[in-house]
């Protein structure tokens, strides 16, 4: 492209990477190791408002209160919202295109008061709807990451 007779140039940022090693923290580490070692979800409960958070973290925002009480949360729940991706994007984990279609959902796990976000399997699209009961499917090999949960499947 030219402008006023000048070739308009661009410079590519190149292949340089800036990797981070994110701290998961105490609450997050317990949450992810429970998934890795026991295929179980745990939440954390606010002593003031009683809200159970998944994923767990140290502070209840609205109450500005520290949370220490762990509560079990089921690996089942219901779809609070969902979308089915029809357009292929690069997977941030792999840098490769993820085959479409696939589903994302807000899942309200039994025992939790917040929505957990993950993939939902869409083999039978008609069954994927708000309120549908779902169950977590775990990966065989687990590494202490959120992707140790493979996806959720509709069990209705």
């Amino acid at each position, binding site marked *: 492209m030219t402008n006023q007779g000048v070739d308009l140039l661009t410079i590519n940022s190149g292949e340089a990477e800036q990797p981070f090693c994110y701290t998961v923290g105490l609450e997050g580490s317990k949450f992810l190791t429970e998934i890795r070692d026991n295929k179980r979800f745990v939440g954390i409960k606010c002593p003031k408002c009683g809200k159970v958070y998944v994923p767990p973290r140290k502070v209840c925002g609205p109450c500005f209160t520290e949370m220490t009480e762990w509560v079990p949360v089921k690996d089942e729940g219901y779809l609070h919202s969902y979308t089915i991706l029809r357009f292929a994007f690069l997977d941030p984990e792999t840098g490769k295109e993820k085959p479409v279609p696939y589903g994302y959902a807000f899942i309200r796990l039994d025992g939790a008061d917040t929505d957990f976000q993950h993939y939902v399997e869409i083999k039978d699209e008609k069954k994927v709807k708000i309120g549908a009961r779902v169950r977590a499917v775990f990966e065989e090999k687990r590494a202490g*990451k959120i992707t140790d949960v493979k996806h959720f499947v509709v069990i209705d």
Partner: protein
Amino acid sequence: MNGVEDITIIGVGQTAIEREKPADTFADMAYEAVTKALDDAGMSIDDIDNIVTTSNDFWDGRTISSMAVNDAVGAGLGKNITTVEGDGTFSAFYGMCRILSGSYKNSLIVTHVKGSISDNIHITNGIFDPIYMRPIGLDSLNTAALQMRRYMAKYGISEEQCAKVSVKNHANALKNPYAQIKKTFTLEDVMDSRLIADPLKLLDCSPISDGAAAVIISGEESAKKHKNAVKVRGVGYCADAYFLGDRDLADANALDMAASRAYESAEIVDPLSEIDVAEVYDAFSYMELMWYEGLGFCAPGGGGKLIDRGVTEMDGKLPVNPSGGLLSGHPVITGGLIRLIEACLQVRGDAGDHQVKGVKTALAHGVNGACGQSHCVWIVGR
């Protein structure tokens, strides 16, 4: 110096919004917006005693990106220049507060973004928590789809009602010389456009854009008599939880609170009757309907009926986004400041072909964060 009643907006400037600006660096875009705002105000850079910039390090591809425009925005050597994260309405809020502190007289607010030079999916994926949300690929599009479905399910809003926003705003953009997309779309065009992440279709989404904007805010007594003088009557700012799963995404609670604060200051009791025109952050079609509710133009869940009744059309009781909004051009970061500029032009009677008749009071709205995490609401008037 007492409060917002002493604050006047006296200069505005914006670049054309374009899919890409290959001839302009970030600094070139910022310079264009600043010189236009200074010309508009009849001021020189020497009249400015402090500058607030807003940009985004991921989109700019550098850290402390806002400082890289130092020369282009006129900070030169010795002027106080600072930065606000997020959207331009928030930097304008801070620029106003600096005047209210008594330390400054004239604040220059500048925002810029180049959406064209990188991958927006990766950048908006970077909004999210790297432990739980980023690895599964959440980004601005798929989280918007999740929010849209949640909103439709809770309140019985239809896809057609959302699509009507896109039809309305694209029609309005035909008369805005700064708009990027100037094309007429029918309801069928929007409904039949490519499915991105259902229920979100291509024409429910704002485009990728480049652009910059600047505003001059004054606390000088003489500014009240300036030819451009637009009075600030109220400003409200409010944020909600970071984790999307902590909120019910069908409700705009933070906007409700931000608007209430702005209305209290402006002594507005019935916004639908007392506001003459509104420019709101329509990053996606359904969001405009949600923002009607958060802004109190109707009750929660009433956004669909409001657009059905034509209330927010150009010839309706309260025209919303006569500029064409973000659906016809969305330079992120700059988006909200352009809403404030458009509101000021409407109050001045300088909005040209998309001028709404007899505007005394206008509303501008900016958003920062995924699915409308935080909101800033401005009420300006004569």
